[in-house]
C-alpha cells in the first residue's frame, strides 16, 4: 500500500482511539464524570425529575446515561465529529468555544518557541560538528546537556524568580495587559511579546540541548561518509558540500525529533500555561482538572490530541520532501 495512504489511515486510527479513550473515561470509570455530573445536578436541583437530569447530563458530557453503551458511543462520536464537545460546568460556555479562542495563543507561544529551538539547534549543531573536539565544542556540549537536565517547569520558575521578581522586567501572568487596545498596533504587539517571552524562553533554553547534540553527532557522522570525501576529491565548492551534502543529510533525524517535540509541546503547555497563568489550551485544561470540570477536561484532551495527530501527520508526510528515501516505499516508518 502507498506510504501516504498508510500513514493517513494510521492517524485516523489514532484519532478514533483517542475519541474512544475519552468516551471510556467519561463513561466507564466508576464514580466517573457521568455519575459525578448526575449527583451534582441532583444536589443542585433536588426536585428535578430524573429524565430531565439525564438530559442535562447529556448536554454537558454528551452522553445519555441510560442508553445502551454502543448507542452512547455512537452519539458521542457523532457529536464530537460535529464539533460539539459538551458544555463546561465551570465556565458555563460551550467547551469548543473556550478552546477555539485559546488555541491561537498556545500555537503562537509554543510554535514560535519550537521554531527558534529548531533554528538554534541546526546552526549550533552544525557549527559544533565542524569544530569537533575544540574548546567551544566541549563547552557548548556541556551546557547543552546541563540545560537538558533541567525540566522546563523548573526553568520557568527560575526565570520568574530572576526576571519578574528580582529585575521586574516582565509581567508575571496573562497574555496581554489591561488597557491595551487589541489590534495591529505597536504597543499591543510589544505587550503580547512581553507576556510571551518568558514562557517561550523556558522552552527554548531547556529544549535546544537534545536537538543540538543530535544535529552535532549526526553531522559528524555525515562528515565521515565516503561521499563527502568523494565530493571533496571532485573539488566541489565547500558551500555546496556543506549545504547539499552535509546539512541535508544531517537534518533528517532532527526533523523526526521535531515531530516528537510537537507532542511534547502541546502536553507541556499545560504546566507552562499554569505557571505563567497564560490563558491558552493548557491553562483551560488545567483549570478543568482542578475544578473537576469533566466536559472541559475531556474536550481539552481531545483538542490537544487532535492537534498533535494533525501536526505529526503533516510532519511525517512532508518528511518525504526532505528525504526522498522516505517516500520510496518499503517500511518507511523505519526512519523514525
Amino acid at each position, binding site marked *: 500500500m502507498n506510504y501516504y495512504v498508510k500513514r493517513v489511515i*494510521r*492517524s485516523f*486510527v*489514532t484519532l478514533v*482511539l*483517542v475519541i474512544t*479513550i475519552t468516551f471510556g*473515561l467519561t463513561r466507564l*470509570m466508576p464514580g*466517573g464524570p457521568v455519575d459525578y455530573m448526575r449527583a451534582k445536578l441532583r444536589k443542585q436541583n433536588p426536585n428535578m425529575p430524573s429524565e430531565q437530569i439525564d438530559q442535562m447530563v447529556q448536554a454537558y458530557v454528551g452522553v445519555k446515561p441510560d442508553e445502551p453503551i454502543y448507542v452512547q458511543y455512537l452519539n458521542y462520536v457523532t457529536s464530537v465529529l460535529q464539533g460539539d464537545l459538551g458544555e463546561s460546568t465551570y465556565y458555563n460556555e460551550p467547551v469548543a468555544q473556550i478552546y477555539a479562542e485559546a488555541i491561537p495563543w498556545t500555537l503562537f507561544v509554543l510554535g514560535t518557541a519550537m521554531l527558534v529551538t529548531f533554528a538554534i539547534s541546526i546552526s549550533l549543531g552544525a557549527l559544533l560538528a565542524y569544530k569537533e573536539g575544540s574548546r567551544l565544542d566541549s563547552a557548548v556540549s556541556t551546557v547543552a*546537556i*546541563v540545560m*537538558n*537536565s*533541567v*525540566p522546563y*517547569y*523548573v526553568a520557568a*520558575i*527560575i526565570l*520568574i*524568580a530572576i526576571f*519578574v*521578581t*528580582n529585575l521586574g522586567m516582565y509581567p508575571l501572568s496573562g497574555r496581554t495587559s489591561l488597557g491595551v487596545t487589541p489590534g495591529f498596533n505597536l504597543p499591543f504587539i510589544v505587550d503580547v511579546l512581553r507576556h510571551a517571552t518568558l514562557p517561550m524562553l523556558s522552552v527554548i533554553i531547556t529544549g535546544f540541548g537534545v536537538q543540538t547534540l543530535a544535529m552535532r553527532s549526526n553531522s*559528524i557522522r555525515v*562528515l*565521515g561518509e565516503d561521499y563527502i570525501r568523494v565530493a571533496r576529491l571532485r573539488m566541489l565548492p565547500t558551500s555546496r558540500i556543506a549545504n547539499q551534502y552535509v546539512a541535508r543529510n544531517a537534518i533528517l533525524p532532527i526533523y523526526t525529533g521535531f515531530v*516528537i517535540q510537537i*507532542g*511534547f509541546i*502541546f*502536553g*507541556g503547555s*499545560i*504546566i507552562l500555561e*499554569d505557571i505563567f497563568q497564560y490563558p491558552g489550551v493548557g491553562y483551560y*485544561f*488545567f483549570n478543568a*482538572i*482542578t475544578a*473537576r470540570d469533566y466536559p472541559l*477536561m*475531556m474536550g*481539552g*484532551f481531545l483538542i*490537544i*490530541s487532535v492537534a*498533535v*495527530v494533525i501536526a*505529526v501527520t503533516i510532519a511525517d508526510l512532508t518528511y518525504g520532501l526532505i528525504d526522498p528515501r522516505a517516500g520510496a516505499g518499503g517500511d518507511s*516508518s*523505519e526512519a*523514525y
Partner: protein
Amino acid sequence: MKPTDEDRNPMADGGDINAAEIPLESVSVEDVTRRDRIAKDLRGHWETFLLAWSDWRFKAGFLILFGFVLAGTVGVWLVESPTYQDGNKWDSPSYFGENPLGTDQFGQDIAALLIHATPDMLLMLMGGAVFATGIGAFVGIVSGYKGGRADEILMTLTDTAIMIPGLPLIIIVGAIWEPTSPILVGILVSINAWAGTARSLRSQVLTIREEAYVEASRIMGVSTGSILRKDITPQLLPLILVNFVMSGRGVIFNSVALYFLGVLPVEGVNWGVMLEKAYNAGAVTSPQLYYTVLWPLLTIVLLSWGLIMLSQGLDRVVNVRVRDRHEGGEAK
C-alpha cells in the same frame, strides 16, 4: 563427549592417525559447566562495566545515582524524619547548624524532607522504568523478530501510543484514578513511554535477526522463544539499559510535574509537593524564601543530570561505532 573408542577406524585413504589427535573429534577437551558459563558471563559484564567506568560521564552518573540510593536507604535511617518541631517557620539555612538547608512554612527541616522523600521517588523511578522498558522491550523485540502481521499490529499500536500526547492523558487518568502508591504513580506517568523504547529496540532487532548465528539457530529449529531469549535479548541488554535510565528520567520529570501541579493526591513527602508548597507560599516572589524552592529544584536537576550522564556513558558500550572512535580507531 570424549573419544573413548580405542580402535577407531583409520581414515579412508589408509592413513593411520590417532583419532585423539584430530581436534574435530573432541568437541571440547573440558566440559563447560553452567558455573563456568556464568563466570564467563559475569566476567563479560564486569569488563563491560569497566569499559563504561572508564568514561567519566558514566562514573559521574553512577556515583550520583548511588548517592541517591544511599540517601534513600541509609540516609533515611540516619536522619530523623521531619516533624513540625524541627525549627521555627522559615528558618533560614544555617549550613553547619541545626537545619542546614533551613525549614519550610511548617518548620520542617528541608534537608530531612528531601532525604525522606527519596525512597518514594526511587520506587517511582523503578516502577515506571521497569514498566516502560519491560513492555517496550517485549513489543520491540517480538515485533522486530516476528515481522509480518504481528509486526504490523504491534507497530500500529506503538505509533498510536507515541502520537497520543502523554501528559494530558496522564493528568486525566491521574485525576480520575488518584493513585497513591509510588510504584503505581511511576507506572501511571510511563503510560505511553514504552512506545519509544519499543521503536528503538525494534530497529535494532531488525539488524540482529539477520546475523549468521541467529539464522543458524533458526535453521536448527530452535524455538522462537529461545532465540529471542538467548540470541537476541543479550545483544540488546546495553540498549535496554540506556532506555531504562532514560525512562527513569522521564518518570522523575513527569511525576514531579504532576505533584507540582497538585493533580495527584499526596501521601508523605515528595520533591514535587515541596516545590508546590514553596511556590504557593511565595518562594519565587520573595527573595528571603528562595532557598525553600532552590533545594528541591537542585535535587531534581542533579538526579536528572546524573541519569543523562549515566545513559551517555552507557552509550559508549552500546554504540560500537562510538566505542571505536574513543579507542582511537577512527580519528575523524
